[in-house]
């Protein structure tokens, strides 16, 4: 029994929701990495430590591969020889492979984090991370995390819009590049599964299924047909819960299937509402400007009226005083 336990691999990740085995964008890549390697593992959840950077971690025997050590769980597993999906990659592809992986892990991961904590409203993040904590703790930790993400991405009140545009632009470039790289192939590199596939699949499933329909990032992802095809293929193959997935024929058609885990229609349609939002804000701005002018003129008119009135009153009063004085005399 103890030997069995010792050899067993356990992945401890954040909770499952939105039709995914784990809904956290850091945990999904590790999950798929182990799945791609066809390594039997036990999936357990930690729901009380949402702000830990140690999660996800993989336990194998008496050793543990933490997320915040040695470059991440996947790197540690490769180094310790437990699960190595990238063995045998030809050396000439490694530079491009490494730089593509770096692009995913920096630009796309940042975009996903931004979208989850700042771009959308907090309900998605709350459901993934804080729904199992008592309410006051969950609220406080949520605000703490939003602040930490802003610090991490360098977002301040002054440059918020600029940073947002930059993050989305980079994500768009990355998706474009990946779509070009994938083309009509099944895998990204060397026609085989690598850790890059796991990382990208984890990110893409998170963006496609967890983020709400109004998400800008999601719309950018769904603009690439071959990426969607890639995602769907692996989802069907590796996710056990096949009833939750819907196979859209076209990315712009709303799908009819719905599961209780999904919020609203599980459509892959990308109809960003950002444009109408922007127009509205411009209208609002002109409206507000005009309203301010109007109020200002009204105020000035009232002041002028009052001053005139009080001026005439003074005149009357002076007359009275003179009369009073005269009478005294």
């Amino acid at each position, binding site marked *: 029994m103890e030997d069995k336990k010792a050899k067993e691999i356990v992945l401890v990740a954040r909770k499952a929701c939105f039709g995914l085995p784990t809904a956290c964008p850091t945990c999904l890549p590790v999950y798929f990495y182990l799945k791609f390697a066809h390594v039997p593992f036990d999936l357990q959840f930690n729901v009380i*430590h*949402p702000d*830990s950077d*140690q999660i996800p*971690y993989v336990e194998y025997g*008496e*050793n543990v591969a933490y997320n915040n050590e040695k470059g991440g769980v996947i790197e540690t597993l490769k180094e310790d020889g437990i699960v190595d999906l990238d063995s045998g990659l030809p050396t000439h592809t490694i530079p491009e492979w490494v730089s593509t992986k770096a692009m995913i892990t920096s630009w796309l991961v940042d975009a996903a984090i931004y979208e989850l904590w700042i771009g959308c409203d907090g309900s998605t993040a709350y459901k993934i991370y804080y729904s199992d904590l008592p309410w*006051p703790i969950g609220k406080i930790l949520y605000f703490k995390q939003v602040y930490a993400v802003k610090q991490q991405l360098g977002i301040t009140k002054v440059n918020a819009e600029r940073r947002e545009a930059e993050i989305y632009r980079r994500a768009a470039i990355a998706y474009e590049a990946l779509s070009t790289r994938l083309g009509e192939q099944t895998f990204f590199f060397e026609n085989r599964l690598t850790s890059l596939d796991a990382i990208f699949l984890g990110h893409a499933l998170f963006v496609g299924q967890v983020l709400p329909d109004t998400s800008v990032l999601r719309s950018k992802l769904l603009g690439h047909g071959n990426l969607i095809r890639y995602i769907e293929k692996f989802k069907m193959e590796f996710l056990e819960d096949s009833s939750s997935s819907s196979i859209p024929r076209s990315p712009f058609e709303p799908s009819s299937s719905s599961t209780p885990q999904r919020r609203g229609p599980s459509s892959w349609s990308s109809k960003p509402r950002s444009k109408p939002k922007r127009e509205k804000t411009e209208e609002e701005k002109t409206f507000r400007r005009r309203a301010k002018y109007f109020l200002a003129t009204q105020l000035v008119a009232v002041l002028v009226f009052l001053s005139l009135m009080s001026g005439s009153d003074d005149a009357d009063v002076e007359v009275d005083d003179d009369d009073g004085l005269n009478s005294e005399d």
Partner: protein
Amino acid sequence: MGPFKFGCLNLENHREPRKEQGNRENIKAKRKRPRWGSGFFSSIAKDDKGRLTCFFSPTNCCRGNDGSSRSLFFITHRCGELFPMATSVEEQENYKEKLPRNPNGDEEEGDPNGDEEEDFEEDFEEEEEEEEDFEEDVSQARLLSERNKLNNLFRRLSTELVTVRVHDVLIKGNTKTKESLIEPELEALKKATTMQELLQAASVANARLQRLQIFDSVNITLDGGPPELPGTANVIVEVVETKNPLTGDIGIFSKPEARSWSLEGSLKLKNLLGYGDIWDGSGAYGWDQTSEISTGVSLPRFKGLVTPVTARISLLSQDWLKFSSYKEHLLGLSVGLISTRNHDLSYNLTWRNLTDPSQMSSRSIRRQLGHSLLSSLKYSFKVDKRDSPLRPKRGYAFLSTTQIGGLTPDNRSLRFLRQEFDLRYALPLGFYNAAVNFGISAGVIVPWGSGFMNMPSSLPERFFLGGHSSPVCNLSGPTTLFGFKSRGTGPAEARRVIIDKSNNENTSSSSGTDALGGDLAVTAFADLSFDLPLRILREAGIHGHLFACAGNLAKLTENEYRNFTFQKFGESFRRSAGVGIIVPTRLFRMEVNYCYILKQFEHDHGKTGVQFSFSSPL
């Protein structure tokens, strides 16, 4: 019950107000008002200044104005006032009490024994102090007769009841303090029917007002009532509020289990709002162990609750990395609802975060890391009939602590039930001031809620055995086992193993074990304390002790209770014995023990040898 405390007037203090009251003639012309002593006395003597001294029995004693603890009164042959004289009582506060004065006293509170009363009044005459010297020479003979009358009077006081009715209670001097705080302490005064009762109630009220800690001094004057109402008395309570409401102290204390020192400082603000509230802020910094900052308020009287209510907010951080590979951060609010000598009820709401910055924890500890909300009610019942908490020689003590966690509508907070028992018994032996102390402590923690049999208990709430705090003095549940380090015994799990691949060798370095604690804990000890033969040591309070103790921990949660048998539990008891010397000083209490481990298991951290332990002197 401690001794009753009376305020006493100094001759000097009494002189000044007398002068202000009028000139000599007026005073002389005034009806001499008798002043009554109080209490029970055993003898009267005359001191070198011609003043009579009355020695009181220990049940009634008072404090001198110079702050020394004295318990004798002396009564002048004329004034019949009480003055402080000798020996010790508990508190160090100054207080004064004037004696009751009766108005034109033929109708002496309806007392049928009018004769003796009249004599008494004549005896205690009020005169100017300046005349004292003049008259002293004249009335030596009078002194003797009065002395006899005093004797008779006091004998009467000690044998009969003199009835009186309290007409009015006046409170003076409280500029900031609300009357609603002072009045309830004086309830007993209003209901007193006899002079003795009144004096007793006055001293009790005095003590209780002193205990609020917001007054510099409290005077209770028992005065005669309005002249038209015979047989009445007025009570005048004069309080002097503390001028400087801010006090602070700082100190360095040692924690016996951790063998480390902590620096603690605190500030107290008294009576900020006038409700007798005491606010305090304190901070403690312990090297490598616990640091805490907290602020609290204590209200002596809150909306009808009889006992003081305390509330405290604290931010605490505790480091258990060395023992169990985790660090604990707490932000908590605790409210003490009932706090009497025997009962204690408090509510606690805490946000707790367990982290592992070392990243070396074992599997069970890893599963427990994270945030949790603890909302619990803790009730303890204590009976301590031992003669001394530091070196008990006879008596017994019992403590039961119950804690229920999970008192929120939210089912995600920590839910558990924790019970502790402590029993101590001290038996005196006749020789060498020796005594045998027996003790047994037990505790159990059980989670509740759906699926509680599979759930693990919360890690910081479990029981841990080890450490050197003395089980004789401390009634704190099953925590101590001589000879074992802090958290040094019980279920343990191997920490994370790091595979070191340098030099092409797969060497794995094991970094020890984590103490997991247990759900069921039992400890027992027997301790024989005796005086050392040298007289110097005996007088310093240094004594020796022989001890033997045993303890065990077991895990019951996560279905482990199925494997639990009492026989196995009994067989796996850890045992140790030893001998040592206890040195109590004013600053700390030091124990030097030589412990011999009789039985320990692997993963236990017990060491045979000499151990030092320092604890607070209380």
